[in-house]
């Protein structure tokens, strides 16, 4: 249960997304530089609001 709340917090804050991004990056493009947390989260927010993700 404690783990779940931690996960929830990380999910809302964006830490979860960043962790997944870094994992993916290290596995697949280790030679390139990864984005830092701030730029990654800013980028992600920009993309989010180009799609339908709020409803009536």
């Amino acid at each position, binding site marked *: 249960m404690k783990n*779940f709340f931690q*996960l*929830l*917090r990380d*999910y*809302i*804050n*964006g*830490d*979860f*997304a*960043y962790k*997944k*991004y*870094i*994992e*993916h*990056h290290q596995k*697949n493009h280790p030679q390139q530089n990864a984005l830092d*947390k*701030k730029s990654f*989260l*800013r980028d*992600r*927010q*920009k993309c*989010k*609001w*180009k*799609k*339908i*993700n*709020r*409803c*009536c």
Partner: protein
Amino acid sequence: MKKDFLNLFIWIAIGFIGAASFGGIALIRGEKISSLWFLTACVCTQLVAYRFYSAWIAAKILHVDGRRTTPANKINDGKDFVPTNKWIVFGHHFAAIAGPGPLIGPTLAAQFGYLPGTLWILIGSVFAGAVQDMIILFSSMRHDGKSLGQLIKDEIGKTAGYAAMIGTLAIIIILIAVLGLVVVKALMHSSWGSFTVLMTIPIAMLVGIYLYYIRPNGVIEASLVGIALFLLAVYGGKIVHYNENLSLIFDRSGKFLAISIIIYGFAAATLPVWLLLAPRDYLSSFLKLGTILLLAIALLIFHPQIQMPALTKFIDGTGPIFSGKVFPFLFITIACGAISGFHALVSSGTTPKIISDERDVRLIGYGSMLLEGSVAIMAMIAACVLEPGIFFAINSPAAALGADAAQTISSWGFPLENSTMQNLADQMGEKTLFSRTGGAPSLAVGMANIFSSAFGSNMLSMWYHFAIMFEAIFILTTLDAGTRVARFMLEDLLKFRDRKLHESIIASLFSSFLIVGAWGYFLYMGVLDPNGGVNILWPLFGMSNQMLAGIALTLATVIIYKSERQKFFFITAIPLCFLLVTISWAVIEKVFSADVKIGFLALANAAQFKIDSGLIANDQISNIKRMIFNQKLVSGIALSFMAILWVVVADAVRSCVKIKE
């Protein structure tokens, strides 16, 4: 063996209690019933449906398989496709689908009494809405997270794909216009409400600046501070309301508010997302979940008596809030909460890309929609705990109430004194509560009553304005997000990318202007309408949403029909046929009915006749002419919604016949 038996016993008991509550709601007459009946009927029906119907669909029709890799696991790009815990996906999906629709539709539909709306919400969500959401979510997931439009193009055909795309753009524009109208009607001549809602804009920006420059991952702390500031803004509104000079500044007409919202919408669509849209969305999501939870708790503690009768005489079509008989108009008034086509867009968006196990589609697709259905039931309860006289006084347009409003309403069989309404308005911190159409004020009065009774305090006016703020925030988030998405859709349609215009600021201002202009036109038209505008715009929105649901169900039917489980295609075909009949009936009646209260064209013809026979003063002629034009415009739009749906269905039949050959 013993465990199986116990399990069976529990499910029989749940079924029995559910059936008994249903019977209670449907059959008890002449005495007031408790709102607990509604909650138990709702919870038991949904539990049984979830446990048996959704499981059956998942196993027998979709062949959900936990061993198959989902797109999140297969593609896992660290960005869009990220496997995520199922409860988090559930929360994400629910926050995306739950908007203001399920709060407003049931409130308006309560004019028929509590029974028709409640039955439609429960039956509709279980057999139509949740089925649609789950199957579209599943199909998108099996096709690597493709969007609804793409799926339609692939599975049905190009024509249907284009029809669906235009339909989607149209629904967003109508949705924003009607939601804007609800906010205008709620804030009109309310200095308290206008101040509070205005203050939420700088508060959201403050949160946005903090998140952008200081701590991008500080969402929770920033949102908590933001919500505390929102509450402070509600309190600040009280000071404004009781201060003579300040209250004059914030006491604004409908036209003024409509233009402000149009300017705001334009700004929100063109400003960077981090400044306004994103922080407002965080705040609104927390507020939304918190308030719904609070309402559920308050209903459980207080379980108020239902004051509204099961059926009112307005099922014959003479209702003051919106005109038309219970069939078909109930089914386009309550769309969200029973079946909402818009959900198909969300279900084929982000959600299918983050599911980590195929079996989760039941909880996420079917379960979220059931939860939205229970939100709609709570809105229905909040409307029906009001004295019917008060309910009709708040929601009926001034034109329907005449000079002596209390007398008119009493003559409908709902006794009401003018002094009751004045007292109520004083208690809520408003000038008047007569003809505050749109659904939001009546819901806020209902919620204020429930909250203050349950939590034993006398802060009615604070609760009322908290509820107004909550609804407005909700709506403005949808308005911002919708305008922006519509803008990108238009840019796609006009091929901005190919023309290298997607980076140009002027081009994006132009596309924003077109979108805001489109919904702004309808919003302003609604504000000018002497009957309150809701009678035009809400049915139009309901039709468009059901049209999209029809398109989504057509897709679901085609997918099932083309699979090996062909014989089960009726589970989506039956709701589809129902929607086809309802929408076509509603559109034809709304456009061609000879009754001026219902038919768009009848009203236009009647006005034209008045002009021709010289009954209208010269200075009024241009207004009336504009009204005639608008009636014809909305007729054309309603007819094209129907046409779009039939084109998609025809294309689907064609593609199914081709498979057979």
